[in-house]
């Protein structure tokens, strides 16, 4: 399974869209051939991204499973010009769009809309040896950020998560969402302003 990345491809993963020759390396096809490995390595991260992007944890589980299944079934189409994580994120975005457009989803939203329990989520913050007072403060910050994200638009949430949780570059986000770079920046600015407002960190 020795497919190789083109030497003319752009390193979109680590850089900021600056063209640079990529050293030819064997593609990590074996990683995609092992669905159990994909689940172990990527499911939690995809689930987090989709949960905060849709704001619906139950729907996010379904989308995450679909994403992994689609990736596994279509693994032959992975060209290796981005990381597996970025490729999976792209699939998750497409699956999410399909779900959000479907009549089934609109019915689902009317019938049952599960929200993220920010209190429960904050309780998962690792203590890491900090004092109880600091833990309380830290959990409060987590809740504030979560609540601020919940109040953002779907696009703002998605862009924010891709930038600050998935650690993707602005150009990379633009490509994976098919959105102009300046629109990505605008969404990021609005999201950050809202979050700083919630945290009380304003000008």
């Amino acid at each position, binding site marked *: 399974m020795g497919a190789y990345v083109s030497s003319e491809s752009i390193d979109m993963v680590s850089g900021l869209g600056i063209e640079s020759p990529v050293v030819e390396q064997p593609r990590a096809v074996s990683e995609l051939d092992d*669905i*159990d490995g994909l*689940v172990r390595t990527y*499911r*939690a*991260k995809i*689930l*987090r991204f989709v*949960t*905060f992007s849709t704001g619906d*944890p139950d729907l996010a*589980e379904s989308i*995450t*499973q679909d994403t*992994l*299944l689609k990736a*596994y*079934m279509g693994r032959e189409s992975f060209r290796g010009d981005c990381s597996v994580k970025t490729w999976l994120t792209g699939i998750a975005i497409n699956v999410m769009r399909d779900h959000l457009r479907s009549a089934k989803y609109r019915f689902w939203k009317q019938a049952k809309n599960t929200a993220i329990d920010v209190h*429960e*989520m*904050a309780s*998962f*913050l*690792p203590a890491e040896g900090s004092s109880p007072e600091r833990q309380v403060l*830290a*959990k409060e*910050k*987590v809740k*504030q*950020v*979560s609540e601020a*994200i919940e109040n953002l638009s779907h696009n703002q949430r998605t862009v924010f998560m891709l*930038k*600050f*949780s998935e650690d993707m570059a*602005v150009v990379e986000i633009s490509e994976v969402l098919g959105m102009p770079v300046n629109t990505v*920046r605008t969404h*990021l*600015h609005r999201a*950050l*302003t809202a*979050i*700083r407002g919630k*945290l009380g*960190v*304003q*000008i």
Partner: protein
Amino acid sequence: MHLSEEALNDVLIGEASPAAASHLAGCAACRAKVEQTGLAMQLFNKASLAWSETRSITMQAPRVPARGRHLPFATAAWAAVAGLLLVAAVPVWRHAERPAPQPGTMAVSSNMGAEDSETQIAQDNELLKAVDAAINPNEEPSLHEFGLSARPHHRLK
């Protein structure tokens, strides 16, 4: 003069202008704002990942359709050959294993007709006559042929 809201956001996005970076280096207040926001987002990332990891563990494995699991071509070809051989071998084996017809036994199966002996055919005919006699008692069968006593039919009335 502190950094504007937009300049602060640019710093957080990682696209600070040289002027903003220079200001940040010398302004503790602006640095604190960036650090506070950055820390809150770090905490959010840690908590949300721990939450999703826990949730992911409780989820089922994705159900992969059988066609999704690729068999190597050679394996599939050998499986097909083995299947064909098996299909061809079963009738031969069944024929070889079938016991020879024993005198006195009745051939019940219709597919054994070709192998019926004259004796078996005769026995079958006798049996059919006996059945006819039982079903149609008014007819006068030659009961004595079958070694049965000629009992009156009043029991059947």
